[in-house]
């Protein structure tokens, strides 16, 4: 019964901290920007609206979740709330997973709220696929932010680490394309390319998830969506496991 209480506390804190207002502001900003840009577009104005709104709302969802997780955990650590909680007769995984479930719920709620306006410019099946993918992406970001917040215990380093991981994962396909593009590869170039390929092995394929092209050109086949979501789930599991290992070793 402890996990639902932790989830409720996380949701309550987010509500009191103004997260719904920030989400509403992000929605308004995305709608206004898309509306303005579509007025100056000569063609594909609806596609432009869908692409810009999707890109902006995806970034906002990820940032809001990461900032919420990091600030919440950092505050708990700073005012010794976490220490007090750890003194309770509860298994440590319950503490960690309960919090993660609360943040995952917040991320999923944001994904649903941010997907709704996209119904104005994209078909429902495509929006549904985008929404499910964004929900999974925010769960992954919550897991990463929780891991870094617990490990680093400071707001700025934890947000920087989460943002760095996220941006690197989003751009890794582009980096690999650049690395593989040399006409006459030298030894140093080959070494660099292999190093990049190695780094890519330990990063999630975020470029394959929550794609705007689904909204523009139609929902992805079930296999493609399943693979994207499966990759996100697997990486969220990896981060959760790493976080649990670190949390188990934490001195109370």
């Amino acid at each position, binding site marked *: 019964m402890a996990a639902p209480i932790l989830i409720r506390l996380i949701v309550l804190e987010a509500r009191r901290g*103004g997260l719904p207002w920030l989400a509403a502001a992000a929605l308004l900003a995305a709608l206004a920007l898309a509306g303005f*840009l*579509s*007025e*100056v*577009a*000569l*063609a*594909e*104005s*609806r*596609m*432009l609206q869908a*692409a*810009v709104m*999707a*890109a902006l709302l*995806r970034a906002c969802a990820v940032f809001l979740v990461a900032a919420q997780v990091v600030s919440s955990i950092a505050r708990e650590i700073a005012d010794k709330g976490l220490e007090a909680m750890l003194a309770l007769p509860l298994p440590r995984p319950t503490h960690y997973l309960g919090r993660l479930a609360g943040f995952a719920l917040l991320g999923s709620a944001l994904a649903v709220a941010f997907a709704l306006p996209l119904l104005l410019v994209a078909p429902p099946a495509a929006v549904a696929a985008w929404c499910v993918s964004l929900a999974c992406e925010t769960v992954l970001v919550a897991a990463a932010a929780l891991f870094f917040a617990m490990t680093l215990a400071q707001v700025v380093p934890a947000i920087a680490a989460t943002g760095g991981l996220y*941006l690197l994962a*989003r*751009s890794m*396909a*582009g*980096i690999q*394309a*650049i690395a593989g*593009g040399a006409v006459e590869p030298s030894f140093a170039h080959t070494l660099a390319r292999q190093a990049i390929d190695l780094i890519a092995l330990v990063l999630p394929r*975020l*470029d394959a998830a929550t*794609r*705007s*092209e689904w909204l*523009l*050109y139609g929902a992805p086949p079930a296999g493609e969506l399943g693979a994207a979501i499966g990759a996100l789930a697997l990486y969220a599991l990896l981060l959760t496991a790493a976080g649990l290992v670190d949390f188990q070793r934490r001195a109370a």
Partner: protein
Amino acid sequence: MTGEQRPLDAVPAWLWTLLGAALAAQIAWQAERHAAAPRAAALPPPPSLQALRLASFGEREATARLSMLYLQGFEAQELDYARLVDWLGVVLELDPRSMYPLFAAARVYAEVADPARSRAALEFVYREFLRDPNRRWPALAHAALLAKHRLKDLPLALRYAAAIDRYTTEPGVPLWARQMQIFVLEDMNELDAARIVIGGLLQSGRLTDPAEAAFLKQRLDELESRLHR
């Protein structure tokens, strides 16, 4: 956000003055700056496709369309067309399913007074059409009309019209598009031909975007008033 605050008169007068003066200075400074329209010469060479992909962080569709809005900010009449065509090519490669670069090339950049620039834009449309004929034929259909009526180059118009017939294979491509050679050869004025093409696009369901429809209607009106002058 909900913490209690002291009353406003707790703030000393000099601080209010400083705040007001700083705000006034900021507004005055910004009012002096006039947003200059980008000059044609200022269009830089396009970034490489890989660089643009990297900068897009995976949002290639949004980046491609925002790049087109950026290009639109430059005056078409004075652009360096070699550079412009490079830009259009990169944007199209970033999102090959977008019709925006081809639409702009055929409907905006090819409709300039300078025949050499117009030809450069039309050739871009033709080149890119060959890569995906079933999707890109509407731009080439318009290019055929421009070649005939603006450039008065019948062989070029026929080459474009014949390419639509030869390379499109999908049953969804309407008959009038495949038979463009006929009304390129017919003694039809530009307005009537444009009406057929735009009407045909509307009927085929390919023209659904409100901005695109409004733009084409405006072009038809301009054409009509020019021919009636």
